[in-house]
């Protein structure tokens, strides 16, 4: 380079300069780049303002084995079970990424905390039974040395589901299946129901199923904090940030039938810090999608669902947020201490809250009345029009009640069949799902966490077989429909 410029200079020197302005030779700074460089050099020089080694302790690590996107109860449950079932200590580095440290919109903390075994799919019943066993011995699973024991405040009052003419036979079959799987559920006729709970109006009730044991409600925040505390004590990394990009490599492969498919592998997750443009690319081996109501958006980032409809590439993850309201009312003459969580034929549910005559409940609206999901504002008219009439019809004491407060939360609603998605994606080889539970994710969380940890570490489900909830059913159009979604 120097030789060239010397040659140039020498050659130019022989010719005349002409009318050009005076040049400074090889460092002719016509476009100002030299001035810029000098400025940068001044900053870099010792005494300047550039610090080459900045503090990155707020950023997630640069490499992680498993990145769990979503810090709700499912995400932390997967993290806990991964650490619990790993082959040796510190074998895997797990990172949990959560967007909102205040959990202001998370479904976990806004849920009413119910747990039941009355489902229509045996695997759901098994998941619930496993979770109840986990909750019963929570202080043995989640004990951290020198930390106080957890009190999840479980209230074992049971669930009472009412059925009309149309669903009575289904309910009977389901209860039989539940009892065979191990749930302690019994069927009640309207007379028995009236005997047990005299404050119920059994007008159009043909059959009722009542959970005798292992059903009730508990404190979801306590479970979340317990899982989080134990997972952190076992060495799980956590980061408060948003996943903005999933960088993947594509490998074209040919199926046995000769079709070409592109198998993707996510090798980097970009975690952007809150209130900042700063992001950290985390190199990862596996990504777990536990993002709850926003799992669909995360799946799109990975390229799931981008393709012609009807093909595997074009099958998107059908999980979207749906807003649900919960109202708290006071009724001094209402049902007493024995009241279970009652789910009416119309879909309206309520339970007792505390000892002061407070109740909380809600209802899932019809498809056409689904509220907008951009915020969590509560619509009080919904209670007046859609919930109160059914409440009064079922429990006449609720004629005089006063709504004290209300809140709204999101369901991670699976629009396909309202059941969870657990397992890997067929094309994006290292993305695993644990989402889409449509309102009963909390009660399945310990079981789902264990199942995902097993399939990550061992390649198959050992405790409960959740192959029925795999992603493939969306492509194969096989609905695994859950009857009892409230």
């Amino acid at each position, binding site marked *: 380079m120097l030789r060239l410029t010397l040659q140039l200079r020498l050659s130019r020197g022989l010719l005349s300069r002409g009318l050009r302005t005076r040049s400074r030779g090889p460092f002719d700074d016509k476009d100002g780049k030299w001035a810029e460089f000098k400025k940068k050099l001044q900053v870099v020089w010792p005494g300047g303002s550039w610090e080459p080694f900045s503090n990155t302790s707020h950023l997630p690590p640069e490499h992680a084995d498993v990145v769990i996107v979503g810090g709700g109860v499912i995400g932390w449950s997967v993290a806990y079970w991964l650490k619990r079932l*790993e082959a*040796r*200590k510190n074998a895997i580095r797990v990172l949990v990424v959560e967007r909102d440290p205040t959990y202001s919109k998370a479904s976990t903390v806004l849920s009413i905390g119910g747990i039941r075994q009355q489902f229509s799919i045996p695997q759901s019943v098994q998941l619930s039974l496993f979770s109840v066993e986990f909750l*019963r011995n929570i202080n*043995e699973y989640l*004990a951290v*040395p020198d930390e106080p024991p957890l009190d999840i*405040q*479980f*209230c*074992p*009052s*049971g669930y009472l589901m009412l059925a009309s003419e149309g669903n009575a036979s289904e309910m009977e079959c389901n209860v039989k299946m539940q009892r065979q799987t191990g749930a302690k559920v019994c069927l009640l006729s309207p007379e028995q129901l009236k005997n*047990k709970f005299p404050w119920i109006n059994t007008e159009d009730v043909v059959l009722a199923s009542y959970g*005798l*044991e*292992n059903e*009730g409600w508990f404190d979801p925040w306590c479970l979340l904090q317990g899982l989080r505390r134990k997972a952190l004590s076992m060495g799980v990394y956590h980061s408060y940030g948003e996943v903005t990009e999933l960088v993947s490599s594509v490998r074209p492969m040919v199926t046995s039938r000769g079709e070409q498919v592109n198998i993707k592998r996510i090798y980097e997750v970009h975690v952007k810090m809150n209130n900042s443009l700063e992001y950290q690319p985390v190199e990862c081996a596996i990504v777990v999608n536990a993002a709850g109501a926003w799992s669909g958006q995360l799946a799109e980032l990975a390229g799931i669902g981008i393709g012609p409809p009807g093909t595997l590439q074009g099958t998107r993850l059908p999980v979207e947020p749906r807003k649900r309201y919960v109202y708290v009312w006071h009724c001094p003459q209402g049902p*007493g*201490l*024995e009241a279970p969580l009652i789910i009416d034929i119309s879909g309206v549910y309520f339970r007792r809250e505390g*000892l*002061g005559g407070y109740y909380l409940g809600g209802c899932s609206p019809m498809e056409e009345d689904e509220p907008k999901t951009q915020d969590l504002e509560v619509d009080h008219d919904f209670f007046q029009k859609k919930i109160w009439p059914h409440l009064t019809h079922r429990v006449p004491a609720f004629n005089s009640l006063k709504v004290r407060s209300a809140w709204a939360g999101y369901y991670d609603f699976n629009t396909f069949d309202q059941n969870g998605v657990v397992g890997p994606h067929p094309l994006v080889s290292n993305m695993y799902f644990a989402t889409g539970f449509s309102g009963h994710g909390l009660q399945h969380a310990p079981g789902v966490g264990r199942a995902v940890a097993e399939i990550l570490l061992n390649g198959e489900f050992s405790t409960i077989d959740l192959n029925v909830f795999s992603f493939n059913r969306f492509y194969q159009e096989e609905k695994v429909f859950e009857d009892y979604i409230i």
Partner: protein
Amino acid sequence: MENDLLRAGCPTWWGGGTLRTLSSQSNFGQGPNPSYDLNPNPGRNPQKGLMASMASRFYDVEQFREWIFRFWSWNLYRKNKVFSYTLKHYGPNTAAAHFVLTQGGAVRFQEQEWLFPQDKNQFLGNSHHFQKLPLEEVDASGCLINYYGLENLVFLPSLRSLKLCGCPYVDDWCLSRLHSLGGSLQELSLAGCPKVTERGLACLHHLWNLRRLDISNLPAVSEKGLTRILVEEMLPDCEVVGADYADGLVPLSEDERGVEEKAAAAVPGAPRGQRTLWNREAPSGMLPRRPFPCLPHPGLIDTPEIRKLEPRGEVIYSSAHTWWKTGLGWEPQAGRGLCSPFPLDKGEDEWIDYLPSPWEGGGELGAQNLKR
């Protein structure tokens, strides 16, 4: 769990002369190259050396604690196993009796005398005699029964009385299991169980034959008076003893009470809520602080022997205190291993400061009452 065993780490001698333990992975109390420090602290006072060595083995001590905790937990489960062999060969009644006697409780078969733990061998010898008899009363007070151990008890077809006084591991989950005894259970006592809360009491409504329920001295129940009222509403045929209606209420000062009464008097026919009852009946300001407002016989566990004794007094409501007093004699040999801490002629008021706490194990007297 295997990880933890590996984690414990055997002392490795590869690094040099000194004994390396887990905590030597941290540089606490050692130089930067521990393997080269042949004798880091020569000539130290042996007493100080113990503390320093324990402090430098922090993770080992923590691991040791975890082992002890795990052993204790395993032992508890071992004591609460289901007696399936006895169940299979001799039926649920004998299995339950065997279980309770092993745990240290007492049982009574139909038309038989009480069997105590010291009679266990005699009972096992005569098991064919007891096999056909239904088990009617179980007194498992102070036993270490937990949720899993209750498996032995909940399938008894004709159990009439169950006493779980002072059982440290009986909690709400256990109470939810009692629904299968609904057909026969007439008496249940949960006095002094530290883990039972009002949520567990809510699932006692399955016991529709229950005639007597003792919920005295449940420290985990937050609103004792309110809970008692709600439990009484839930079980209308049952006599609920133990909790005072006024529990959990903050006494009003003089002028506040005056305002309340005026407001109540101003509305004619307004229901005098049960919650304001005590306002009118306690004449003086603060109710005295009693360590056991609810126990009918402080320091004495209610056993069938005690109940067989004739009550020689009556329940007295004094205007100054709501104070229960029964005149049962304090026979020292009555019941199982009881000795009364109170001489017969002590006056009412002097009992207030003298009551030990059998449930919290304060004093040997309390411990004696609990130990079997």
